[in-house]
């Protein structure tokens, strides 16, 4: 089964990268830009047919390694 995981900084955590990217895009003329937050994206293929089990495993991956839960949130999406 295939999943994607998106990791972003938690809502209230400062995102220096996002801030600089946002300023630069505004300077490039994209003036109606409201806000940008950056993050990481993973595509994960696992050998598991039970989607419940698979999702639990992905959650475990996120919590144990992929996300730094102190400052980051994760979102899981099923791809196929």
């Amino acid at each position, binding site marked *: 089964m295939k999943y994607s995981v998106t990791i972003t*900084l*938690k*809502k*209230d*955590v*400062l*995102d*220096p990268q996002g*801030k*600089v990217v946002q*300023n630069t895009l505004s300077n490039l003329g994209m003036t109606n830009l409201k806000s940008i937050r950056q993050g990481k994206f993973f595509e994960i293929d696992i050998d598991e047919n039970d989607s419940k089990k698979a999702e639990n495993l992905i959650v475990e991956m996120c919590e144990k390694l992929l996300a*730094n*839960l*102190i*400052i980051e949130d994760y979102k899981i999406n099923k791809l196929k």
Partner: protein
Amino acid sequence: MNITDKVIENHGLKKDEYKNIQKLLKRDPNFLELGIFSAMWNEHCSYKSSRKHLKKLPTKGKQVIQGPGENAGVVDIGDDDAIIFKIESHNHPSYIEPYQGAATGVGGILRDVFTMGARPIALLNSIHFGTPAHPKTKSLLNGVVSGIGGYGNCIGIPTVAGETKFSETYNENILVNAMAVGHAKKNKIFYSKAKGVNKAVVYVGSKTGRDGIHGASMASAEFDESSEEKKPTVQVGDPFTEKLLLEACLELMKDESIIAIQDMGAAGLTSSSVEMASKGSLGIELDLEKVPCREENMTPYEMMLSESQERMLIILEDNKEEYARKIFKKWDLDFVVIGKTTDTKNLVLKFNDEIKGEIPIEALSSKAPVYDRKWIRKKLPKKEIDIKKLKKISLEEGLIKILSSPNYSNKDWVTSQYDQMVMCDTLLKSGSDAAIIRIHNKDKAIAVSVDSSANYCNSHPITGGKQIVCENWRNLISVGAKPLAITNCLNFGNPENEKIMGEFAECLEGIKEACEYLNYPVVSGNVSFYNGTNKKNIFPTPVIGGVGLINNLNTYLSHHLKEEKNNLILIGKTFGHLGQSCFLKENYSISEGRPPEVNLLNEKNNGETVLNLINKNLIRSAHDVSSGGLITSLSEMAMSAKLGLKISKPRKLRNPTEYFFGEDQSRYILEVKNENLDKVQKYLKNNNIFYEIIGSTQKKYFEIEGEMKLDINDLCKINNQWYNNY
């Protein structure tokens, strides 16, 4: 919100402290005011447990321009140059989020230094971790080292010296102390004292978010299982914005626009505004709706207690607003007038024209609680170790064990992650007794070093306090610098425990005695209490950061051996003291006994004499003898140069283990050319210095006559492997 007992407790305030607040206000505080009291009255901002003892430290001297009480200390280095420096802890945040905790620690200490008008020229750090075997140590080490590097490298200030140590005492509470050193012109130093009424109070730098709300309170509370829940308060560092803030501030400082300036560190807007008003005996009024915010719907409480990084508060002279605004605009930084100074001596907080809080400044500063906490003395341990009863270990075995241990291994793995050369004034890098930084465009330099010896301090705090000042002094002398002054970071356990308070009081007695004797005053520092978890306190760990002056670039030295066939002279008496030694710890896991005695008279005489010899250009290399004893120091000199040496058997009949591994103080090893040997000996004799000629340098082999002979490359290999295998 109602102020219940629970709310008061959550703010880290004791019941009688709350009563005191009611008395000072003559009413109950509201929630915002309670938050402000909690921030200003906690240990971190108020120094309530330590103040009484800190007062005793020597802080004055001809070389001192500014002692403790400002953002950082200032010393005179001749001409129109001044050095501004300070060390600070970021222990608890680094344990929770090692990368960001360490990074913001570096950022915070840099702001303390450039707030005063200095361009930072060097960063140092002292980091202590639990044992390598502890499950958390590896990731903490990785995170802290890359956090320190990440911030310093990005902002472009070289990280030139430091110490990385491991001990089980830090298993649940690591130490991350960062020191910054800056250079300024003597007549261009900026202070935090507000002057004049109706002056604009300006907010500059990053926007305010909900970062680190209650960080200062967290730094002053013991950890428990629920610490994990406090995690979201850890701040994220933005070294890029700090670089802009640094350049913008220095640009504005060229002019006469600034009356007072203060960085927003712990307790953010609260402590910076209170501090400036308090020093100037003024009041301050803030319109909080003007505070640049990163998040929507931030409350006055959040704004006042946020610890968002990379922000400053400035009080400007009249009619300078537009000039200053332009500079900050150039650097893409926020610049907003958020208030004014007043003559009410109150902190007045308005939000959309409504007064949300009003507190007398005095209540937050001079009337903050001061405690004379109970403390008890520690007895000098009686137990002496009889090494004849231990399994015999050869010199070679003993040395290899030390050089391959985590604490004595080559730290290249750590230091190569730091840019040590940016700014192009680093004359001597990490791994030496002290690092040396040239004053830009001048023919002089400063030497800097940070040191600690927690096991000595734990065994006998007074001796430990003395010893660590002396070791730091020796490290500066060894590179040819005249020691000027120190900054200290005092990492201790829970001060409410009288044993811990005793460790603090006694370490400070020791520091005071040594500093006074050596004319080596304390000009800045920081106290970090409550280091420990669930009633298990860390060893007392005062960290000393010293600065020395090198007036002539032709006379400084490294500890690298320079060439073959030079004489090696050991300065100072060797008694073979093994109590608390690295030899016993690494080879037998024994950490008992008393620390070596410190004789300040010898310390001073030996040090000054060695410094004079170095200044006369009679010495080729020098190294202080410290932890690990003579043999370890010799091996460091040899390995750093990949040059060998041969030590003859000590003439008097002595136990070689005690002779080579003993940690007696006040000792140095000097490398002297044959042609200078007579001159050096004569000078030593004239100054009543005890010395021994112990051997000479040679090609390739590290050799102790009749005891061991090792290829220097093998020794290096042994010394290099630990980090790479960890």
